[in-house]
Structure formats: structure tokens, C-alpha cells
């Protein structure tokens, strides 16, 4: 506990040091505020435009979470199908690679064309970009089960369904969480990137990505910084929520979760 406290104190000290350095650079080099606002100006922007900042944050959070939940559910379903036979895997697996390598910047305009601007389009982008790691990791977990365990089930004349849901799926949960952890970061980035293209159907109101673009066009650099800060906070929160869920589901039996807890 004491060690954990020290870690927090150290991190805060580094943060404070960076703020001081930032302010000093402004004073010494006389940087104009539209290029680099002072930390104080950013803080003021946060306070002054609190409602719209929170609104943008909520929109992006909703889109990323929607995309991530959809990719988790659909990714697991696809992985369950992939786990059924080597043949199915060989046929369809290359396409998940395609999903991973398609540049989101390139397909965003297409989605905008198909779905129209707004939250559904951004959610769809977050979903597409975060799907591949879920499929890849869960499939790997489902098919790499110890042979003796499968034999154990066969000895009881277990059905295919029993092997899948009592053996393969539970043993794939740790791999699934590895996938979700990777996907959660990508989903947030995907949502913000998506918003740059398809962010809002109303002028002046939209998620973080849209607002960042808007603020930069208006040279509201202090607010832009506040938005970037909010995006960072969002990414972190996603990471911690996923870490907590992973701990919650695995700490009783899985080694990896226990070491996280012990550190």
C-alpha cells in the first residue's frame, strides 16, 4: 500500500515539474498563446467550457464503448465459428487480417457516404477498427486447449457443445481479455479519428475529434489542449475499466490476474 502511494506521489511530482517547465518555456521564449497556451489558460478553458467539454467527452465515450462492446460480442461469435474447424479458419482468417490492415482514414469517407455523418457512423468505425484483435486472440485461445483435457471430455462422451462451452470458451477467457485490452485502446483512437471525418451532423456540436478540429479552425488553442487532455483521460479510463473487469473475472483462478493484483 505504501509503495503504491509512493508511485502516485512520484507520478504527480513529474506532472508538476512538467507544468512548471511548460510555463517557464512560455516566459523565456515569449511564445504567443495561440501557438502554445499556458497551463493556466488551459485550466481556465476547462472550467469555462466545462459543459461542452463534458458533452464532447460523453459523445466520444459512448461511441467508443458502443464500438468496443459490439466488436467484443461479434468478435467472440466469429471466433466460436472459427474454432469449429481448421477448414473454416483457413478460408476466413485472411479476411480478419484485411480488417486489421485497412487504413481507417481511407474507409471513413466511405462509411460517411453510406451511413451519413453522426454518432452511428463513428461507432461503426470504432467497431470495425477494434474487431480484428478480438477475433485473433479469442480464436487462438479457443483452439489451443490441452489435448488431455479434450480427451477427458471425450471419455465422458461429451457433445461438441459441451466441449465448446464447458472447456474451450472458459479457457479462452484470458486470451479474450488480451484482445479486449488491445481493442479498447484502438476503439478510442478509432472513434476520435472517425469524428474528424464523420463527427457531427450539427455544426459546433460533436465528440472530441470533431471539437478538436473545430477548435483548431477557430484558433482556440487553449480549448484544443483541454480537449486533448479529455481524450487522454478517456483512453486511460477505458484501459482501467478493462483491467478491472479482467481482474474481476480472472483473479480467483488465473495466474496472470494474480500477479497484477500482487504488484
Amino acid at each position: 500500500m505504501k509503495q503504491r502511494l509512493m508511485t502516485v506521489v512520484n507520478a504527480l511530482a513529474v506532472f508538476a515539474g512538467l507544468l512548471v517547465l511548460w510555463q517557464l518555456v512560455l516566459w523565456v521564449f515569449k511564445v504567443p498563446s495561440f501557438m502554445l497556451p499556458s497551463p493556466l489558460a488551459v485550466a481556465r478553458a476547462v472550467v469555462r467550457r466545462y459543459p461542452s467539454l463534458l458533452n464532447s467527452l460523453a459523445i466520444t465515450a459512448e461511441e467508443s464503448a458502443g464500438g468496443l462492446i459490439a466488436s467484443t460480442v461479434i468478435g467472440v461469435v466469429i471466433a466460436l465459428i472459427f474454432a469449429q474447424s481448421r477448414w473454416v479458419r483457413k478460408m476466413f482468417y485472411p479476411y480478419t487480417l484485411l480488417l486489421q490492415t485497412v487504413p481507417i482514414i481511407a474507409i471513413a469517407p466511405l462509411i460517411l457516404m453510406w451511413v451519413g455523418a453522426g454518432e452511428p457512423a463513428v461507432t461503426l468505425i470504432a467497431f470495425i477498427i477494434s474487431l480484428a484483435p478480438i477475433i485473433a486472440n479469442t480464436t487462438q485461445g479457443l483452439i489451443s486447449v490441452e489435448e488431455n483435457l479434450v480427451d477427458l471430455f471425450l471419455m465422458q462422451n461429451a457433445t461438441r457443445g459441451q466441449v465448446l462451452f464447458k472447456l474451450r470458451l472458459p479457457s479462452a477467457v484470458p486470451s479474450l481479455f488480451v484482445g479486449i485490452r488491445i481493442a479498447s485502446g484502438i476503439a478510442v483512437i478509432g472513434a476520435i479519428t472517425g469524428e474528424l471525418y464523420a463527427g457531427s451532423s450539427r455544426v459546433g456540436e460533436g465528440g472530441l475529434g470533431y471539437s478538436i478540429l473545430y477548435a483548431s479552425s477557430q484558433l482556440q488553442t487553449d480549448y484544443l489542449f483541454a480537449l486533448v487532455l479529455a481524450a487522454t483521460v478517456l483512453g486511460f479510463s477505458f484501459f482501467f475499466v478493462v483491467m478491472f473487469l479482467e481482474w474481476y473475472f480472472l483473479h480467483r483462478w488465473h495466474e496472470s490476474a494474480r500477479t497484477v493484483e500482487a504488484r
Partner: protein
Amino acid sequence: MSDALTVPQIEFDCVAKRYGNGDAVLDAINLIVPKREFIGIIGPSGCGKSTILKLISGLTSPTSGTIRVEGMTPKNAREIISYVFQDATLLPWRTVRDNVGLSLEIEGVAKDKREKEIATQLELVGLKHVAEAYPRELSGGMKMRVSIARALTTNPQLLLMDEPFAALDEMSRDRLNEEILRLRAEQGWTAVFVTHSVTEAVFLSDRIVVLAPNPGRIHADFPVELPSPRTPAMRTAPEFDAIVARVSHALRETITQ
């Protein structure tokens, strides 16, 4: 009982096994195991010891020859067979209690009946106090006990054991050997026990089959003439040493041949 005298538990008739186009793993195996016999199978690495268990359980099929278990094909006989693997093969996300209940759960036995059977088996192997623990909290010996308890829940007539205690220290191994004999005396199943350890084979078995490698075949087959029930003190008796010497000698022959 008359039935016990007529239909053998296991019957291998000129069984050969090869994987793919490779060399034969087993060749011309003829073996009859009567009911209630405890048979130890021993041999150097690569002689097909484990393959014999896989064949009896129908997890793999013979390339030629026939295998009957209680007059049935191995796959049809699975209901009366339990298999104890080399490692404990526990599901790490299940507690000890739920691991022991796994076989019955797969068979679709009702929950209250299952609970009763689990409690009985946990009591028998002395694991009642860790029923709610997860496998990673147990020692190697305790994990094997859970595995054995699970195997016994289905009330098997035939227990196949594939070097179940190979990874344990000698003290745990000796204790579990004694427990296996106690459980078997109470429940009367037939056992096929594969091992690398001569002393373990001699202590447990009514009869020992020594296999020779390349291809796997029966090199020697002799009874273990020690009084039943076996006691720990027997391990230091001269008769015990004599049989150990005999088995060791047969084992050496399989390698130098």
C-alpha cells in the same frame, strides 16, 4: 460372479498400431486382463505404454486386430471406464468441488445427486477441507487426488492410469499408492496402471507386463506373488526385493536385446 469368470475385462487380440505411415508403435499384442485384476504396465520410453491405454479407452483405434472391453468395443465401453491422465487435467477456473463433479455434469446427472457423490468422493480422498479451493492453490499430490476423485465419481469398473504419480516426490507417491490400493479394495475396479517406476509397479500390481520397444511388444508377463492387502512394510521385505530384481532384469533385457 460367474460372469466375472467368463468375460474378461479387457481382451487384445493380435493388436497392432501405427500412426500414419510411421513405424509400428505396437505390434502383435495379445493380452487378457481378468476382472478385478490390477495390472501394471512397464517399459522403456517409446514402447507404447500410453498407447495401450488410449486403445483401451477408444481415444485411438488399432491399425489391425481387435480390442474388447467387457465384450464391447472400447468406445461403447466408455461408460464403465475412467481415465486418470499423467497430469491432473483439472479445469483451473473450477473449484475442487466443481472439478470433481465435472464427469457427472457432462453425463447430465442431476445436481443434488451429483453433490452427494462429490461429497462422498472428497471424503474418500481426504479433500473435504479444500472443496472450495481452486487448483492453483493445491500441491501436486492434492491435484492428483482431485483427479482420482473425479475418475471415481462415475463408479467405474475399469480404471486406466497413465503414470499418474510420475511428477510427484517419492513420499507423496508412496502415500498415494497406498490410497489407490485402499480405494480399489473398497470399490473393486479393474486397473491398468502405466508407470516408469519398478517399485511402484511391484507394490501396486497383481501382475506386471513388461513391454519392449521398436515396435512395442510384450516382453514378459508375470504375476506378483505378494500377499494382499499390501502394507507399506512390504516395501522392505526380501520377497518384494526379489520381484523388483526380476522386473528390473526383464526391463534391462528389453534395452540390450
